[in-house]
């Protein structure tokens, strides 16, 4: 006979009640207001109530920034190999294929030639929805080619990063994309061309520790996380209480690591102004 008068409270603690009914899918994570997809897109994916910046996919970002019809993609054919035959819970090849199907992109970066307010430039735009925007061999290669393309044309390069860092599935070769992109920026700078680096949410790890930090001008989107180590890692390693604005663009501005925080509606005119200032070589 099972003893029913006693209740084992420990079990309740192990299995907390299910969270209350699911939120509406179109709920702003910052202010909780609801939005319609078409309205959010029309507002450049910025919450009309509180200004929260939602992630923007690479192609949509390019549409938002450049003169209509001016973008010509480069190196779109590049695809990752699987040099380590990497297998975690799933083979890396399968993850790549899934990411390509889900995003319609060959990798986490799209590069090409474009014009912003009729000023020619090269673009390197990252897409967080492709494996967390992680940087593997193809990402590094595309960035290096964007640098070379800008050098050849004598125009500035605008990079827009949104990435968790290096792609673990490519092991040490992913780490080597840091020095690779750094060398590419050095060559770009020596040719006299400018790099304007825009950091969207998130720009962390290997991205912040390579080309994203090496722009002549560093811009950030409001609320973007920009930290070398993520908040969870820092909290776990140091057991420190993290400040509320840990690693955010606003904190980075205060500590002198970025030149400006630019709300998305102002990004296109701001880039145009910088392109006019740096000019073509």
């Amino acid at each position, binding site marked *: 006979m099972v003893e029913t008068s006693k209740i084992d409270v420990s079990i309740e603690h192990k299995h907390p009640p299910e969270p209350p009914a699911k939120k509406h899918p179109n709920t702003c994570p910052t202010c909780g207001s609801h939005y319609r997809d078409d309205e959010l897109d029309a507002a450049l994916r910025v919450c009309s109530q509180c200004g929260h910046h939602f992630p923007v996919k690479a192609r949509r970002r390019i549409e938002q920034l450049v003169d209509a019809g001016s973008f010509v993609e480069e190196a779109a054919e590049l695809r990752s190999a699987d040099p380590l035959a990497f297998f975690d819970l799933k083979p890396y090849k399968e993850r790549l294929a899934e990411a390509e199907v889900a995003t319609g992109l060959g990798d986490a970066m799209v590069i090409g030639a474009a014009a912003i307010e009729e000023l020619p430039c090269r673009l390197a735009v990252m897409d967080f929805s492709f494996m967390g925007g992680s940087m593997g061999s193809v990402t590094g290669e595309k960035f290096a080619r964007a640098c070379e393309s800008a050098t050849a044309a004598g125009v500035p390069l605008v990079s827009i990063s949104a990435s968790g860092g290096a792609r673990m599935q490519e092991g040490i070769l992913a780490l080597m994309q840091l020095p690779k992109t750094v*060398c590419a920026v050095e060559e770009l700078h020596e040719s006299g061309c400018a790099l304007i680096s825009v950091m969207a949410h998130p720009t*962390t790890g290997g991205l912040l520790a390579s080309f994203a930090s090496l722009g002549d001008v560093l811009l950030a989107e409001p609320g973007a996380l920009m930290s070398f180590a993520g908040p969870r890692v820092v909290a776990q390693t140091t057991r420190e209480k993290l400040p509320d604005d840990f690693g955010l663009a606003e904190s980075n501005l205060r500590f002198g690591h970025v030149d400006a925080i630019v709300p998305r509606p102002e990004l296109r005119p701001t880039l145009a102004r910088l392109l006019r200032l740096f000019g073509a070589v």
Partner: protein
Amino acid sequence: MANDAEIRLRDRLSKLGGLDLLRGARLSGELERLKRQIDRIEAEPTDEEIWTKVELARHEDRPYTLDYVERLFDDWFELHGDRGRADDLALVTGIGKLDGRTVALIGHQKGRDLKERTKRNFGMAYPEGYRKAMRVMELADRHGFPLATLVDTPGAYPGVAAEQHGQGGAIARSQAVMARLGVPTVACIIGEGGSGGAVAIALADTVLMQENAIYSVISPEGCAAILWRDAGERQKAAAAFKPDAAHCLELGVIDGIVPEPLGGAHESPDEAARLLGAALADAFDELDNIPQGELRARRRQKFRSMGVLA
């Protein structure tokens, strides 16, 4: 996968073998080195051997930067401070005589006992450490001193102050300074080559790795925690991303492997230092007569070409 690297090495080997032995000793040294590397590639480490290397790379008796400095450098003078804010003791910098010429050295330093480990922050540098490193790189460049770096860090320190002081930017700029140097640079991974904190001082003309060192994009524990959602799966993670020297050589990430005494560098620090010293001397000899501009261009080209595309 082994084949590309092997073919490349065999090709170099046959070219060397075919040359007249004008510079007899040097050339036969090179032959031996290449032969040893081929032997290593042929004996690709198993998953268990990879884990053994992770443990050896972290062995608490493994020689650290200052153990090698003491054995290899004469007239060693340590340089302290980033000239801005602090002196980061997780990164040691200085100048000294190596084989009779002045060489600048930058290396991570872990601690031997708890007190020293705390002082050295377990070899995990703050941005101040990388700024000190940059200052010494520029000093070396100014005076034409070759630069040696010894890499041994679990990673750059992940802390609130480190972020506020610009950890990511410091690592990026440290690499950029190395990409600009006009002097010969040789890096050697002597223990743990942990991610950004390691590569910050490893953008060198020649990158070497000790036999039992590891070089990786993330720690096995970190990788396991993220991809397996369980830090306990670290052995699986290490086996998957292959941080050992043989695999790094095969992937074209490093230029050579420095042998260690039998059982690992900790078994005989003197012998380990002798072998490291010989490898550094060889590497600098090879770089000696290359003009500045070419050296820089070659270095950038080498890193530019890293990665594997489909």
